[in-house]
């Protein structure tokens, strides 16, 4: 079946622009996660949802970052007034249910470059 998909795959933004990154999780997956991966580093947690509820947003670096999942499926990560330090790969992952042994299935990521 289809895996997690993300769009766009690549995004170039001028400093100060707003961007929106989309994640389509695996159908039926309850949990959805966003991570930020800087070049040469491991992914860092941003936020996660269980259905439409945002249960943890402790990793969002500033109030310029906002995520939503209004109908409990597709999610959007929005970054307002982008800065150069926002350049990174943004990874989305989903998992079937709230279970500590659940695997997270990752999408290919969106590579954001802020000029």
């Amino acid at each position, binding site marked *: 079946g289809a895996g997690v998909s993300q769009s766009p795959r690549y995004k170039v933004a001028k400093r100060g622009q707003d961007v929106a990154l989309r994640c389509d999780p695996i159908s039926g997956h309850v949990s959805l996660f966003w991570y930020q991966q800087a070049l040469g580093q491991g992914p860092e947690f941003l936020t996660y949802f269980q259905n439409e509820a945002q249960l943890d947003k402790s990793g969002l670096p500033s109030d310029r970052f906002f995520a939503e999942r209004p109908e409990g499926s597709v999610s959007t990560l929005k970054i307002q007034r982008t800065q150069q330090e926002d350049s990174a790969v943004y990874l989305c992952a989903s998992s079937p249910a709230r279970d500590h042994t659940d695997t997270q299935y*990752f999408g290919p990521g969106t590579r954001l470059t802020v000029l």
Partner: protein
Amino acid sequence: SQQGEEDPQALSIQEGENATMNCSYKTSINNLQWYRQNSGRGLVHLILIRSNEREKHSGRLRVTLDTSKKSSSLLITASRAADTASYFCATRPSYNTDKLIFGTGTRLQVFP
């Protein structure tokens, strides 16, 4: 940063050799997972070991966990060129959260 650390940062070996990567973490955990990431692609889950387990096998993979030292190792036996990738450990903290905390990764290069 909450990230754990992995060593070595980079490892180059010949096909057929074994590769060992180590991971250290900071918090009490519920489980520890290993992921592989090929260049320019998303992460692929390899194996999960629970906090009450000490060793786990899956095919050519062997994972050990020492919770007293807050460390884990991943052994890939009889490596292949297709194993070339970055490998990350990720911990699920034992406090009430579903997030994963990733290590800094080991870049493995397997030469044919």
